[in-house]
């Protein structure tokens, strides 16, 4: 028998978007947060370099410049009405965080300190602008801690280490979720008027990934299985500076502070690919450039990586070459980038102050996800039909502000701005809505699936299938894509899905059965990998993070549109909301 709970508003996921939504919803309605992790373990905490807002604390800046940079960064696939909201509300959202106690670094006058970041520019001079508000290189950690602190202050109800495995959707309205209490293995039914999915990304379908083990796309996979579409799944960001082989992220803030890419010949190769922004070009451009260098035989020692160089004397030499009067020293670099310097020391055993750091692109961020409107309401089709009672915000959602490629720092802006809008909207809705009825056996389908996994007696091990999936995705659905590669990937995914039906697990128990939950999560990754490859195969152009070697140009005539994909592999498209900025050639 399942335990039953009822809340006016319910948030699944306790990262930046979920906590922000819960904070705002809980001001006026009875709200709870369900998270498979303790909230402070959420991956928002791993965000490093900063959160952009045109505060203009360091130099002139305008939210409209931030908006243009975001649209350009997104290769003109971003919906410009959403981008305007993002960049305009970023300013008050960052101030809101400061008022909540977030310990931003400060300028000598005591204002929030800002620094340069990839793709963020002064639109008049075209030069990098200092827009990223930061707390050393642990800005995400500070955001996550601050929001959790505020939730404690406001007595938000938490169900920690409860994993959502199903969503209750009846007659096109969302009415709740089904979750497993990890400690006991018991099933709980949560009945609600307004549900927000804020479960983050799904970067664990790749091997070289900056993502946490827990980022398995539970939310979008559940939405997909409930007949909802996912949008722009072919647009996945590969961050150019993952620690070689491990994928651990080294923040773009390193390059914001002056670090540069170097190839085997010692060349600053980004000068050739992005003559103006150079090493601070957008991430898709940098990742492609790295692999082009590798293909040209310019990887370090002929291998598949390059160097990220943040030795102070090297940074200063390039500042000098650029005519930039700034100079840095070891003390400054250590102060501004303490965490990533420590990562390099711990995981690579080298000192970035005296040695260059081997890096390669790492799977990082989903631009696509569950389609929503400007108030985080989930859409069920390409015509914009709203699913009553269902919301999504953060990486799991696709508003779409990031378009075909997200700019650095904009993920945190997205969490705060759209988490807040979603939270307010949920409260407004829940205040006037009634609880729609749910049946007594809503928990049964999930129970059947979990028991099926628990009692499976096939010969396959989930760990092996996961490994193979990750290798296939790294090989074929990565920075460079082709028709042949994507078709191969799809065949392999289909085969893995068949084998997944034959899995067995070792742990047959109820309490804290991570063997069971990981196997269930693998099913989510397989479903999402399939629709990712399908969406990528259908988009016969190159735009932002989606680069087709067989279609190397952007094709606005045919593909200036968002992809929607369903679980039955059906595809549909919808127009991009163009505003002030007409698509032009994208150069950095």
């Amino acid at each position: 028998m399942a335990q039953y709970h009822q809340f006016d508003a319910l948030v699944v996921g306790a990262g930046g978007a979920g906590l922000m939504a819960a904070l705002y919803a809980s001001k006026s309605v009875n709200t709870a947060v369900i998270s498979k992790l303790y909230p402070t373990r959420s991956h928002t905490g791993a965000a490093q370099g900063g959160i952009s807002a045109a505060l203009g604390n360091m130099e002139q800046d305008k939210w409209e410049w931030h908006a243009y940079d975001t649209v350009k960064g997104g290769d003109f696939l971003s919906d410009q009405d959403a981008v305007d909201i993002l960049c305009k509300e970023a300013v008050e959202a960052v101030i809101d965080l400061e008022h909540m106690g977030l310990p931003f670094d400060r300028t000598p006058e005591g204002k929030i300190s800002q620094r340069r970041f990839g793709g963020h520019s002064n639109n008049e001079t075209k030069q990098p602008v200092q827009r990223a508000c930061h707390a050393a290189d642990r800005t995400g950690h500070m955001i996550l801690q601050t929001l959790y602190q505020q939730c404690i202050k406001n007595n938000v109800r938490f169900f920690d280490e409860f994993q959502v495995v199903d969503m209750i959707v009846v007659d096109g309205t969302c009415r709740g979720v089904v979750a497993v209490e990890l400690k006991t293995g018991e099933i709980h039914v949560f009945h609600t008027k307004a549900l927000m999915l804020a479960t983050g990304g799904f970067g664990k379908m790749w091997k070289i990934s900056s993502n946490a083990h827990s980022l398995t796309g539970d939310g979008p996979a559940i939405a997909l299985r409930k007949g909802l579409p996912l949008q722009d799944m072919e647009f996945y960001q590969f961050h150019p500076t993952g620690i070689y082989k491990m994928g651990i992220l080294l923040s773009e803030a390193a390059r914001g502070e002056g670090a540069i890419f170097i190839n085997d010949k010692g060349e600053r190769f980004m000068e050739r690919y992005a003559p103006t922004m150079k090493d601070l070009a957008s991430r898709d451009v940098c990742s492609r450039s790295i692999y082009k260098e590798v293909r040209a035989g310019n990887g370090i020692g002929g291998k598949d990586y390059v160097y990220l160089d943040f030795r102070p004397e090297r940074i200063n030499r390039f500042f000098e070459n650029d005519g930039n009067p700034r100079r840095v020293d070891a003390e400054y670099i250590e102060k501004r980038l303490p965490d990533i310097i420590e990562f390099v020391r711990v995981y690579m055993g080298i000192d970035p102050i005296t040695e260059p750091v081997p890096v390669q692109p790492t799977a990082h961020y989903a631009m696509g996800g569950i389609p929503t409107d400007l108030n985080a309401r989930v859409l069920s089709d390409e015509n914009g039909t709203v699913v009553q009672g269902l919301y999504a915000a953060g990486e799991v959602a696709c508003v779409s502000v990031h378009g075909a490629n997200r700019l650095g720092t904009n993920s945190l802006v997205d969490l705060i701005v759209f988490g807040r809008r979603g939270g307010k909207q949920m409260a407004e809705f829940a205040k006037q809505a009634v609880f729609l009825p749910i049946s007594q056996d809503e928990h049964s389908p999930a129970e059947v699936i979990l028991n099926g996994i628990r009692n499976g007696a096939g010969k396959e091990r989930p760990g092996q299938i996961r490994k193979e999936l990750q290798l296939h995705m790294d090989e074929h659905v990565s920075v460079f894509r082709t028709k042949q590669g994507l078709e191969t990937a799809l065949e392999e995914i289909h085969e893995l899905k068949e084998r997944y039906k034959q899995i067995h697990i070792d742990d047959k128990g109820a309490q804290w059965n991570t063997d069971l939950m990981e196997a269930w999560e693998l099913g989510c990754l397989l479903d999402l990998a399939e629709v990712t490859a399908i969406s990528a195969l259908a988009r016969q152009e190159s735009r932002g993070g989606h680069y087709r070697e067989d279609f190397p140009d952007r094709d606005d005539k045919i593909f200036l549109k968002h992809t929607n994909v369903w679980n039955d592999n059906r595809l549909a498209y919808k127009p991009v909301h163009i505003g002030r900025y007409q698509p032009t050639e994208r150069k950095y």
Partner: protein
Amino acid sequence: MKVHFKIKRFNPEKDKKPYWGEYDVEADESDRVLDALQTVKWDIDGTLNFRRSCAHGICGSDAMRINGRNALACKLLIRDAVQGGKITIEPILGLPVIKDLIVDMEPFFAHYRTVMPFLINNTTPGERERLQSPEDRERYDDSTKCILCACCTTSCPSFWARGDYVGPAAIVQAHRFIFDSRDQGAAERLKVLGEPDGVWRCRTVFNCTDVCPRDIQVTRVIGEVKAALITGKID
């Protein structure tokens, strides 16, 4: 290289008491201890349970006692952990074990909540940020690094002896606000920490500082809170 793992196992649905599970794992010396635990779980014995998420020392999920010393399994490399070809892993001490390496974190977070771990400032802020000088910001920087992994608290003999002691992690969290120039809740927090189960249970053993994966000077932080209580001044 081949590494022999000895891992303390306990399944509440089967076992009357804990026992040692032994596993031989093929690992690179530059692998994380966590990677080897994943190998055990994925390739050898799926019943092994432990918490983990980010795998690079930021989320604080995988605190465990490795060769008798608390650490994050994702921030300790095999080459630094292995002793005579062996690595011994137990759950962190002082919190009830639920299953294998998973302990009940609720008492830990309950202590955290007692120190009012949120900014208290009852003035109405303006439209822009509150100002804070770089020096005032620096004053509490060390304690903002805490990721609530519990390595410190569960290495503290005072906490082992008495679970009602708030423990080093909660004191670090209190320090983060007491020394923040924007905060007005120091008196309330110091009242909590001046109670018998507050800072005075700290006997400056330094275990907390030794094991902190974020390199927070925990004992020093606790000392500053003690000084604030004695002098009534926060500086």
